[in-house]
């Protein structure tokens, strides 16, 4: 039996891992993006109350290697009495880490949004949340779409780190097959294929947003 046939016979393991990775990625991407949008909303206004703590949070996440954050949440927290499952720890790590990056991307774009855009909304009687949701955020997303796409791909690849805190995702599946049958080359090549597949899907999504933006005259940031 060739190595490839071994892998084909254990395709269930791969598919389970793939499914877990998709779930992890999908949920954490949505939540991290929403967290980023929320943070930038809290930074609206001339003197936002939470400016300092949010700044500390964003900078804190940016100086931290992702792996250390995952380690801290899964292996470190139990010593303080907080015990998270591998899945919970992984999700929290992904969402907070990439939420901070999304916030930073959107905040950068927010700084370049002409003040007149907001003034026109204020003059029309928009409330702060209404203005943010309908006038500011759509423009931020359209002009930051390429950066957002990049960040999503980094997020996808960071899910692979979670193998180290025992989350049974795609990389974990390849890891276990490679060590069970000692076929690392083939196992990891297959795994690359799976990640590639998700990335292609992402790329398509970003392209659609790109066409949407181009139709409105938004250049890539």
């Amino acid at each position, binding site marked *: 039996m060739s190595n490839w046939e071994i892998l084909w016979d254990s395709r269930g393991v791969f598919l389970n891992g793939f499914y877990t990775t998709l779930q992890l990625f999908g949920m954490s991407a949505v939540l991290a993006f929403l967290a980023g949008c929320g943070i930038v909303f809290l930074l609206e206004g001339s003197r936002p109350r939470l400016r300092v703590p949010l700044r500390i949070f964003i900078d804190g996440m940016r100086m931290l290697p992702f792996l250390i954050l995952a380690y801290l949440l899964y292996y470190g927290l139990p010593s303080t009495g907080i015990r998270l499952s591998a899945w919970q720890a992984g999700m929290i790590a992904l969402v907070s880490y990439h939420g901070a990056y999304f916030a930073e991307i959107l905040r950068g774009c927010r700084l370049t949004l002409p003040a007149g855009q907001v003034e*026109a909304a204020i003059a029309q009687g928009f409330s702060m949340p209404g203005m943010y949701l309908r006038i500011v955020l759509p423009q931020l997303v359209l002009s930051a779409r390429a950066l957002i796409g990049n960040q999503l791909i980094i997020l996808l690849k960071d899910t692979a780190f979670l193998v180290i805190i025992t989350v049974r995702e795609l990389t974990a599946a390849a890891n276990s097959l490679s060590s069970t049958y000692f076929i690392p080359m083939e196992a990891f090549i297959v795994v690359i294929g799976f990640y590639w597949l998700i990335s292609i899907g992402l790329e398509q999504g970003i392209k659609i947003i790109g066409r949407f933006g181009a139709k409105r*005259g*938004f250049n890539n940031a």
Partner: protein
Amino acid sequence: MHEPATSETTMVSVAETADTSVVAAAVSIRGVSKSFDGTEVLRDVSMEVAPGEVVSILGSSGSGKSTLLRCINWLETPDRGEIHIAGDRIGMSDTGKPMSRRELAGMRSRLGMVFQSFNLWPHLSVLRNVTEAPIHVQGCSKAEAGERAMALLEKVGMAHKCDAFPYTLSGGQKQRVAIARALAMQPKVMLFDEPTSALDPELVGEVLAVIKDLSKEGYTMVIVTHEMEFARAVSDQVVFLDKGIIIEKSPPEEFFVTPKTDRVRRFLELEAPTA
């Protein structure tokens, strides 16, 4: 159709109990001062705009005219003084405390503002630019807001571009859409902040023509402008600001023909040698 000077919006006026026999000024500015970083931009400015009146504010750049206009809808907060819109004070509640955001938004929606740089929202179509605030601020139904918007776009000659996006429009077209957008809130007063200053000379005319039409329909308007002939043609009153002080306020024929001060005479010689 649209008669903002007479039609009551949904706002209930509470401040008109004292004296109802006198019609409240559309805009009443009382003793307004404003400084930026220690530089006094407005000094104790007072003026009134009657309902249906068109008032032009002239002055050289840096004279404070845009700041004065922006104080009217509280985009700038005056350091001192009061501003009343149709009898209701803006910015401060009756108890003397600053208005909540919600109250302020309610007051602002009675004022339509047109900016020098248009400030159309680029992610929305022309039609959506006009319907966005009526739907999401005033709570109009989509159908009603759409109908109102199309009528206004028709009025400014932009109905055929309702599905276009702002970046495909010329400056003059953008500004006409911006005027329709401001009118869509059925404001009591229209504020124009140098509406033609960012336009190529050959596009100025189409925007001024729209504003001129509005003045004939009885809209109350306050216009900051550098277009002398236009100001002369549309205004009921011309106000001249110099270093943050109103040094002259008179009807246009008086202002342009027999100005009272040397300052205005010099200004007119420089800005409008033919006038």
